[in-house]
């Protein structure tokens, strides 16, 4: 018997105390936050900072961003990824979650590590889910790294994206900030509308 998919509904404006309670200072334990790397996590430490803009160019103050990524060896911490050659990292789960409502300029911030290349074909990337009030259905996108030019050039997903829109998926190093910081803004609409995937 086939059963129909349960339809999606908006995350609404009041998700914080349920999905990101510690970030927003509610008395409930968070499953995940913006800090994705532990003390012994392998790989290059990076920080990802971004904003979410609506179609009027205004900052979205109540979006929830989720990240799913491979570890430094390009391995996902999940049973469907059983490639023994790519080691698991006991100190890296690969999931992060951050709402845009706790910083003065409504940014999201993830402290993580740069993922390895997943299967030799795909360039290092973060898988991103975007949720907010005003979206009945979440959106999927990806974040790639501007300093991985060669790998990006042969990435099959980036190649599926019209060339003039690929830039919306590529995060750039911010040389003015200490550490390794990448900037990745998400534009829901407009000239620079981020590429979202049907997947």
């Amino acid at each position, binding site marked *: 018997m086939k059963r129909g*998919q349960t339809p999606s509904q908006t995350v609404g404006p009041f998700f914080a105390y349920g999905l990101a309670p510690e970030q927003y200072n509610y008395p409930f334990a968070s499953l995940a936050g913006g800090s994705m790397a532990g003390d012994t996590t392998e790989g290059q430490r990076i920080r990802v900072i971004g904003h979410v803009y609506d179609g009027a160019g205004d900052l979205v103050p109540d979006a929830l961003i989720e990240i799913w990524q491979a570890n430094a060896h390009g391995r996902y911490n999940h049973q469907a990824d059983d490639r023994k050659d790519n080691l698991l990292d006991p100190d890296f789960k690969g999931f992060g979650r951050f709402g845009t409502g706790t910083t003065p300029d409504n940014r999201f911030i993830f402290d993580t590590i740069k993922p390895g290349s997943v299967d030799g074909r795909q360039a290092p990337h973060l898988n991103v889910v975007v949720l907010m009030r005003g979206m009945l259905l979440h959106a999927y996108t990806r974040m790639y790294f501007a300093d991985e030019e060669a790998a990006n050039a042969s990435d099959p997903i980036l190649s599926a994206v019209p060339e003039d829109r690929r830039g919306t998926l590529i995060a750039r190093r911010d040389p003015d900030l200490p550490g390794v910081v990448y900037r990745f803004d998400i534009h829901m609409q407009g000239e620079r509308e981020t590429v979202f995937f049907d997947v």
Partner: protein
Amino acid sequence: MAGREGDDMNSNRDWSSQPPYILEEYKSTVLRGPTKPLVPIAQSLSELTGPVYGHEAVRDFDSDLTKNARVNGEPLGERIIVAGHVVDEDNRPLPNTLVEIWQCNSAGRYVHAADQHDAPLDPNFLGAGRCVTDENGRYEFRTIKPGAYPWRNHPNAWRPNHIHLSLFGKSFVSRLVTQMYFPGDPLFEFDPIFNGVPEGARERLVSSFDLSLTEPEFALGYNFDIVLRGPKATPMED
């Protein structure tokens, strides 16, 4: 497509079951939903894997919202039990799957600081919970029936009573965030969020009253099954 890869692939989003990104009647979608066509991509390990949170992620009382935020007494309102199965489209149970919920209190007020609805907060009710499905894919929460609340989408707009739910399922592409409603709500016909889902699918968002779930002298029971994107139908091999 053969072998392991075919078995692991997820079905696509069924667009006849899902609401659109832009829906005039739900005003804030107009500037927030993507407008350009989604770019179709093949599923790779990035899409076939996803975050796993099992029983270790859940503490005692996380699934009992009538108890998990008590300060000086019991929360006010009608106690309910919400339970059901999480399955894939082939009706196969999804064990060890995280279910997160959040909701307003019996007066229709959320704990969230941005909720300015002039209804009382309940000092003994937070409205957040989580649990993990058992080996049969079953989950169960105890909570307080959420009230209706007004919003500013259109004049005299009220949301039907609902509980927000969040699930990961088998992989990142089976991610689902949704809302569960209660049977026979008179506000359904006025709610663009509920009605944004195509007819024939939106009924899946309505729980059913279930006397067998009811706990005598304690709480009424509502059943709500959740169907996540499952394996893609594999072509017949001969």
